[in-house]
């Protein structure tokens, strides 16, 4: 067994910050705990991000067995793909820490725990990016999920929050069981937990039904995390019930963890079709068909379900299901054989989508947190007529909604465009047509909320008391808006980064 822990330096920084975030709870008077823990967490994530950007480590971190220089089993690797995902996670983590501040400031206890849990969840997402065997996959993913259970139920005295945590736990337990069952099946079929061995078994052609069922179970276990229909069932209730910053985490980093693993696994499980000279595996139902149907159902469900919603958080929950539909669409493209470089294009598009969506969702939730914080002082405050009470918040939320809908100058548009382009280049015209059609429907319900903010009409909007936005939130929202616009206008560097990560993932097989 060989350990090269220096490759895990960013993760150690985050883990250390998680521990350090608990200290102010012990040492400082209650009034100053919130800010101290928040900034400790911020510093840890920032340090991790700086390491990833300026001193990216390359190599394996955990290697077991093997003779000579070549390890037999690697548990964890730091390659271009994992670096992109870890960097994006650390960055989104920074946004999440900032956006949670107005919320935690109002907590009367448990500031340290909140940030420690958040940081360990983020740590899980970062670790997930580099896993190369099914066991570490399971462990890292559970790190994310268990933290998220607690976070979802963080408002212990709130019925909805507790219910959300409970539901999440039960559904999550089932998904974990499914995943673990799948891992067991795969191990039974191949005799190894390593993804390399798995790829060898898949690429050899005509895999046993045992292996196929195992893979299907693992994929479905991950679909629970991403929120693909019909494994999305927990999403609306949990998103609505959980504290808003936690919902922000669930819809960005937690969802990303599932997709990152799907990509990592897909690059192995779909090995026969990935290259330019791939072979169709005749023995099984094609993964592309399965994922395509799931993507379609997910998309329709998310978009149609969002239309009648009356609460922003619940609407965003359905919207996140819709976005999972686009992500699955990209996966379906990855699982389809077509000559050319479509596979890399698909992975790159998905990685870009992930970042653009995360930044957008973080901006939207930051605005919601700010509204929520103001709501304590002024009950009955929603987004209705927000433009007259805080034009700034209304602008930020409006831009975020437009980006979610995929309107041109925003990053969301480029992301959708890239995914659809990859889908088309793989020849899945029908899927792409549905994807484009869904944009129109989603435009309708997003714009309904924009109208609600700017032209409330009907009975008069809640009294025009201005909403006070703290400067930090203001800065965060400005950053979010700049990024959303930047990813829409100057998308070149972002895309190249994502494309490089995609190349690394597909080359590393």
């Amino acid at each position, binding site marked *: 067994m060989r350990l090269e822990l220096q490759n895990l330096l960013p993760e150690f920084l985050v883990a250390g910050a998680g521990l350090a975030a608990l200290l102010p709870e012990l040492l400082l008077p209650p009034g100053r705990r919130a800010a101290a823990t928040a900034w400790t967490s911020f510093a840890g994530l920032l340090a991790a991000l700086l390491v990833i950007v300026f001193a990216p480590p390359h190599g394996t971190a955990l290697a077991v067995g093997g003779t000579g220089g070549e390890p037999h089993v690697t548990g964890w690797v730091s390659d271009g793909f994992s670096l992109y995902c870890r960097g994006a996670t650390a960055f989104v983590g920074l946004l999440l820490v900032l956006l949670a501040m107005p919320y935690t400031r109002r907590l009367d206890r448990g500031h340290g725990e909140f940030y420690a849990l958040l940081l360990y969840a983020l740590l899980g997402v970062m670790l997930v990016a580099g896993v190369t065997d099914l066991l570490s996959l399971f462990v890292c993913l559970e790190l994310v999920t268990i933290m998220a259970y607690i976070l979802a139920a963080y408002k212990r005295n709130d019925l909805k929050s507790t219910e959300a945590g*409970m*539901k999440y736990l*039960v*559904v999550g337990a*089932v998904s974990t069981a*499914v995943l673990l069952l799948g891992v067991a099946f795969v191990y039974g079929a191949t005799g190894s937990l390593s993804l390399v061995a798995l790829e060898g078994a898949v690429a050899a052609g005509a895999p046993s*039904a045992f292996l*196929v*069922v195992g893979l*299907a*179970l693992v994929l*479905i276990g991950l679909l*629970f995390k991403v929120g693909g229909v*019909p*494994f999305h*069932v*927990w999403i*609306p*209730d949990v998103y609505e019930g959980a504290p808003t910053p936690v919902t922000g985490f669930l819809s960005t980093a937690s969802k990303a963890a599932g997709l990152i693993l799907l990509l990592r696994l897909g690059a192995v499980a779909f090995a026969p079709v990935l290259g330019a000279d791939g072979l169709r595996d005749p023995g*099984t*139902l094609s993964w592309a068909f*399965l994922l395509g149907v799931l993507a379609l159902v997910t998309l329709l*469900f998310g978009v*149609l*379900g969002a*239309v*009648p919603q009356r609460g922003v958080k619940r609407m965003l929950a359905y919207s996140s299901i819709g976005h999972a539909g686009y992500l699955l669409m990209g996966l379906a493209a990855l699982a389809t054989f077509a000559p050319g470089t479509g596979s890399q294009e698909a992975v790159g598009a998905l990685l870009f989508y992930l970042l653009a969506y995360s930044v957008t969702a973080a901006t939207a939730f930051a605005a919601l947190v700010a509204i929520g914080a103001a709501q304590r002082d002024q009950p009955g405050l929603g987004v209705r007529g927000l433009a007259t009470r805080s034009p700034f918040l209304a602008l930020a939320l409006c831009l975020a909604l437009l980006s979610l809908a995929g309107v041109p100058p925003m990053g969301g548009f480029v992301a959708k465009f890239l995914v659809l382009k990859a889908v088309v280049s793989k020849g899945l015209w029908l899927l792409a047509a549905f994807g484009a059609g869904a944009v129109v429907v989603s435009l309708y319900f997003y714009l309904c909320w924009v109208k609600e903010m700017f032209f409330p009409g009907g009975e008069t909007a809640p009294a025009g008391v201005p909403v006070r936005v703290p400067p930090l939130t203001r800065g965060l929202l400005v950053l979010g808006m700049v990024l959303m616009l930047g990813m829409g206008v100057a998308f*070149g560097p972002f895309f190249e980064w994502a494309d490089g990560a995609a190349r690394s993932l597909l080359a590393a097989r």
Partner: protein
Amino acid sequence: MLTVALAILAAPLVGFVLQYAWGPRLWRQGDWLTLLAIGVSLVGSGVVLADVWGGATYRWTWEWFTPGAVGSALSIGIAIDGLTAVMLCVVSLVAFLVHLFSMGYMHGDPKYPLFFAWLQMFSFSMLVLVLAGNLLHLFMGWELVGLCSYKLIGFWSERPAPANAARKAFLTTRIGDLGMMVALMAIYAAVGSFEFDRIFEAVEQRAFDDPWLMLAGLGLFAAAVGKSAQLPLHVWLPDAMEGPTPVSALIHAATMVAAGVYLVGRMVPLLSPEVLAVIAVIGAVTALMAGLIALAQDDIKKVLAYSTVSQLGYMFLGLGVGAWHAGLFHLTTHAFFKALMFLGSGSVIHACHHEQDMRKMGGLLRRLPVTGGTFAVGVLAIAGAPFLSGFYSKDAILSGAWNRFPLLFWIGLAAAVLTAFYMTRLYVLTFLGRPRDEHVHAHAHEGGLSMTLPLLVLAVLSVVAGWPFLGWDAALLAPPTHLRVEGVATVGDLHFEHDGTVMVLAIAAGLVGLVAGYAVFGRLAHRLDALKAPFRGLERAFARKFWFDELYREVVLRPAYGLAAWFTATDQRGVDGVVNAVGRGGTRGARVSAFVDRVVVDGLVRLTGAVCQFLGAGVSLLQSGRVRLYLGVSVGALAVILLLEGLS
């Protein structure tokens, strides 16, 4: 150097954002911030000027995106050469002084901070335009300039006149911008790139055989005609006087109208000899006609507005006859003395409690010594008095015309006489003689230092900017290297071959105008009506601006409204006809139609509703909140998938 260029651009942009967002809350409502920002641009422009003195050029290009699979990459670029440096200095200097002046002039305005925000944006837009390294980038600045002029001309939008003037300015220049878009498309079709160098190389190779390039040249000139208010699109500029006076100064000296001249100056290698001839003729005719109209205006700002139109005509005349250098030289000197006179008129208007009618002024020189004194410098400069800046640049243009189109030279000379004449009229009516309105006169007083200082600076520049031994024009305004096309090749150094005859004639023209103006409006003022009697008809024509507005109303607007009315009428007749037919169809027909309506139309609507309800109900049925159901659905689906996967 790149840092400097970016700083020049960034400072006013940051200034705009800060001022727009937080201006009202800052100390002094943020005016110092915008002044500081434009000051940074000014210093940067000075650095650029010093650096390119002697012919250095810079260019940076960043790829933006590639449209489709066939097009070549579009880019964002900054290019700096002598012309850019001159324009940078003029723009940032005039903008700086206008900011400073506005601190006094706009004092107490309820929208004071907003005014400075838009001034910043206006300056930023023009700097973008000037620094642009390719035509597409330039176009962005161009449109931004248009937008900002709209916001600023209509700054007092609560009054109808400024709102209408802003709309008129925007729509009229839009007509010209259409030409710009045609030109952009033509150039992309012909050359496949918007880079200046690539376009000029293409011109060199193909020498106007390509009809696309011809079209592009005409389109660009149409855009310039709109922006620079030349015939026949000059009508917006005088109306734009409804905006605050500092804005007028900025528009007339450094930003809006200068953009058109700059565009033609920048793109001159693209213009074929025929297009250049058109430019020269339009320029000369505009110079003369606008001068005649200026003669009969009583509003002090309207006189200056038509004077600008006339002077811009001069610049186009210069560019058109191939005196490239002279046209841009005049752009620079004109920027100084016109800004001086506009700010001076602003000072007068400020002093007279926003009275703009010259017939109510008079004798203000004693009350406003600084304004009156500096204004006199401006008048002498624009009239072409020897040794002032205007003399050198105007002389250069006339020399160019003399060498190429003698007829246009005589028109230009007539316009020069007119210029001196109406400017003297303005000065005499405003500053000399006896006060004609005691009330206005009694309260007049000089504005603060922020208003007089810009006047003094501009007065000095109006005097010295043209002095040949400074040599800035020779050092910086080197003709474009690609200017080798036949018919245009004779350009460049006309400035240094002052034709003796031309010079004498130009000096004489200025003096005749000045003396005649003083004689008629100063000495013989008491007999003015008798003197004007034989020219009653002409004066009417001038005062009504040759009926251009009326002409457009009759020829463009009325037919358009007529057409609209016709459509409305047809529509009503058609609709009414259908309604009547249905009515005449009798009760039975109505009943049938009602039945159809109820069953088919309403049925469809209800069906759609029902489908939505059904889908929604389906969704909410699933989302009942029961975890058992949730898991049942998921695990059921799981089982189906596994069966399919495992068995297939």
